[in-house]
């Protein structure tokens, strides 16, 4: 009987341990998913701000050549989970859009200087 009891105890311990590990891994996966979702939400806000800045620049003919491309690259990086790269790119795109707008406004009355 003793001979049977030891393996049974061992098996149940393993099951319990496995259960704990599985709970731990699923909760860590959940935490990771939550983190990704939060990072994506932060990125989306940055993206929306940059898109608005670009639309404003474009409305006055101030869009620069690469800004739209940078925004696409930022989106792709975010979708691939590289939020550091995505944020860097989207901030640069927003900066370009804002500069493009400022430039167009500053050049509103551009004319010759002979």
């Amino acid at each position: 009987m003793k001979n049977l009891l030891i393996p049974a105890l061992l098996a149940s311990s393993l099951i319990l341990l496995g259960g704990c590990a599985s709970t731990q891994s699923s909760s860590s996966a959940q935490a990771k998913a939550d983190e990704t979702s939060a990072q994506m939400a932060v990125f989306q806000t940055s993206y929306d701000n940059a898109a608005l800045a670009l639309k404003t620049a474009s409305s006055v003919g101030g869009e620069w050549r690469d800004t739209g491309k940078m925004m696409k690259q930022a989106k792709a990086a975010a979708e691939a989970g590289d939020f550091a790269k995505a944020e860097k790119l989207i901030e640069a795109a927003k900066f370009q859009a804002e500069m493009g707008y400022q430039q167009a406004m500053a050049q509103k009355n551009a004319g010759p200087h002979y």
Partner: protein
Amino acid sequence: MKKIALLVTALIAVGILPIVANAAPEDDLKAFRAYFKKRFPDTSFQEFTNGNYAVGIASADKRAQWEDAEEFPPYELPLEKGQKLFETPFANGKTYASCFKNGGIGIRQYYPYYDPNTKSIKTLEGEINECRVKNGEKPLKWKKGDIAAISAYMASTSRGKAIDIKVPDEPEALAAYERGKHHYYAKRGQLNMSCADCHMYNSGSYIRADLLSASLGHPTGFPVYRAKWGSLGTMHRRFGGCNKQVRAKPYKAQSDEYKALEYFLNYMSNGQKVNAPSYRQ
């Protein structure tokens, strides 16, 4: 007094006042020519039509190389193709000649022009496609290929005729002129450069290995055959390339913006003889 202030504010808001305040096109033309005459005293008025191969701008070697290229020009075949396309009847039996004054021969010097009926600027390429659509054909793609070949052939029949662009005293015509003028002088793109920065204030200087041509006479050689392209291209193709080079987002070919720029530049070349198509590096 309040009423006047309100009116002035309203005029500024709708953008009318800057047009009124700007110099008349004729004054711009005089000042533009005088600028280049002073900058390149050894270059004659007509010689500017040769771009950066003009005497007084290009080195003797560069000029000689270009003269050699023009002897057996690479645009000969596309030009022949353009003539063939121009003369080939559409499915309905009509040809391009049916759409243009004088059968489309010797009229390039009047393009682009302000059309009072549509209150818009009409370009030669624009009317080539209008003609196609009117005759049940699909429009051609802008910038290169068949449209550039047809336009080049039509322009070649105007060789030696002086550019003759009018800016009538009508608000829409003046607005288009001013729009083109603004595009030319406004800095744009990440490099913060205007058309004028290269082709006016720094014309005759080198930008890396390239000699910057003068704007005066630029349009006379279009469509041009560029070695870089390996084909003929329209003026709007070149505009897009220039805008991209200063890292600005280019406008679409045949957009109102580029039509206005073409209008302004051709007006500035009034009196200079058409020499299209031309060869450029």
